[in-house]
């Protein structure tokens, strides 16, 4: 009797499990299909695409579209490929992520461990900045960048992104440090450590997981930004996203779909890499905290 019940349970379990896997597989295929189309078509000569079958594997494999997208494709008026703009994006993202993360951490530290009268009000204001749509600040930002002489430069973009990211990075760090034991800060004070020493020696070394979260968030947002990039840059300082748009919209001659696909993948690659590489550390960081020593 018991044995049969158990058998039934096992059989039902297996069936349900199979269904779950089938469903998951279906969704995975559904979500991966666009990527498949992009990868497959970026490896075909243009004639094959013109013949119409977007889903078919290439008959002649070629990496020509990738090389073209990277270094020779027509972007606007120059046949430079995406390479200089990729570098622009790197030059913009790295300092912007670094500054906004560091300042967010400092803000969080002050707002939780060196609380002053009105600290919560200041935090609410910073939180509010997360909800302001980008479009609203476009014209004031343009004016300020102009006054600072930073209009149309990568430095100007770094500044805008770093400031705009502060609301979020402060929110992340503030909530993380809120749970950080204040007794550690007090112990360090008695040990004679100053404001920055406590921050650098005590808080930062314990902030791994939240730093990774913030970096992923900031990197993805800043790299993918199009609005600020297109508004505050000129031909020399355009980030990758704007260049990709120009690549696709260049109206000279034929539409090189295979090159466009390759370019789009190139533009998405860094965020993917950041997520895959640091995502692992992120999970590891969470696990390290979860296991009691």
């Amino acid at each position: 009797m018991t044995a049969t019940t158990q058998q039934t349970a096992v059989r039902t379990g297996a069936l349900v499990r199979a269904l779950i896997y089938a469903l998951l597989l279906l969704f995975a295929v559904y979500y991966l299909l666009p990527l498949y189309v992009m990868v497959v078509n970026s490896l075909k000569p243009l004639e094959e695409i013109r013949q119409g079958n977007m889903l078919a594997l290439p008959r002649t494999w070629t990496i020509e579209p990738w090389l073209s997208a990277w270094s020779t494709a027509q972007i606007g008026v120059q046949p430079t490929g995406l390479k200089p703009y990729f570098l622009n994006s790197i030059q913009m993202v790295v300092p912007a992520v670094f500054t906004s993360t560091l300042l967010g951490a400092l803000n969080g530290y002050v707002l939780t461990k060196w609380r002053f009268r009105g600290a919560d009000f200041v935090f609410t204001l910073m939180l509010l900045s997360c909800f302001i749509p980008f479009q609203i600040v476009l014209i004031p930002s343009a004016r300020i960048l102009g006054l600072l002489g930073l209009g149309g430069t990568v430095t100007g973009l770094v500044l805008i992104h770093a400031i705009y990211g502060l609301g979020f990075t402060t929110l992340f760090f503030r909530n993380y440090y809120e749970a950080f034991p204040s007794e550690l800060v007090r112990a360090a004070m008695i040990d004679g450590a100053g404001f920055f020493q406590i921050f650098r020696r005590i808080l930062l070394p314990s902030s791994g997981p939240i730093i990774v979260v913030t970096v992923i968030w900031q990197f993805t947002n800043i790299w993918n930004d199009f609005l600020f990039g297109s508004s505050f840059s000129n031909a020399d300082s355009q980030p990758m996203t704007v260049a990709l748009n120009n690549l696709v919209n260049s109206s000279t001659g034929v539409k090189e779909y295979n090159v466009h696909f390759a370019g789009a993948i190139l533009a998405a690659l860094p965020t993917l890499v950041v997520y895959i590489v640091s995502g692992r550390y992120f999970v590891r960081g969470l696990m390290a905290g979860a296991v009691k020593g």
Partner: protein
Amino acid sequence: MAFLEIEKLEKRFGSVSILKGIDLDIDEGGFLVLVGPSGCGKSTLLNTIAGLESVSGGEIRIAGKRVNELHPSRRDIAMVFQSYALYPNMTVAQNISFGMEIKGVPKPERDKAIAGVSETLQIGHLLDRKPSQLSGGQRQRVAMGRALVRRPQVFLFDEPLSNLDAKLRVDMRTEIKRLHQSMKRTIVYVTHDQIEAMTLATKIAVLKDGVLQQAGTPAEIYNSPTNMFVADFMGSPAMNLIPATVNVSGKSPALDIGAYGGRTMSLDLGASNGMLSKFSGRPVMFGIRPEAITDPEGADRTSKNLITAECFVEVVEPAGSDTFAVVHLGGKEAVARLRADAKVVPGTVAKLAFNLDKAVFFDPETQQRIA
């Protein structure tokens, strides 16, 4: 002159007053324990001594020097926190030497200090571990090591044993007492555990709602509490506080207590309690420790005023070393502490000896001690 002096100390957070004019001092090498219920201000008082909280009024002096405005690191103090507050990213050795590192003490000197402290506390084998790899007792030792290595004038302990299990707590208590005896440094220690307070202190300060209730040696606090709060708070089981009426119709004042079955029990107080005559016919609170109510065979023979009376025993709780009997007196439960093999049966009347030398009396209105 006392070593650590606290004078008219006040602490306010906005309109809330946490410490309401504390006057307290401790001699050099003394062990001052601050005790009281949660929220009485004892931890705030410790934090003001440490300099982690500013004061709103009054003065703190260490070795005659005013320290109100001094940064915590310049007060020559060390503190052990309730959660130990070990830096999680550093090894035990780095934790212990962090303060010296900040001060710029050269490495060979730091290593020597670490070696010295780790030998005293027997944590030498733990020096390369991270705090997360230590047990509760080991963390406690490391936290003490971090305090010891500073060689401060005053040690501050903030409920250091409250996160340990019962057995370890007793061991560490002894350890702290031993350290204090060998180092002869001044210690201020916060706890809500009155047994810790009794065993460790050379001086106990009982606080309630930011007001110092009484400060004195453990014996003073235990035997002559100044009010009902101190009487009730110190000692386990707590002191019995029994409503009674003073009766001076006889040649010496007596105490009428409502006993079992509507009867009145009368205890002759003898001539020694003259102060009570003023309360003739009025209700008082009769305070007597459980160990002063015993079986007649186990009573203190040296007592000058030992009175035997019959009480109705409700519950008997054998505790191994003693037997506790719950009796009904004056409409309240009172605990008597009998010898382990005393013959008492619940639900019967038993003869109990009251050692009235140890009795104290309080005015139920003001809660203050009368005699």
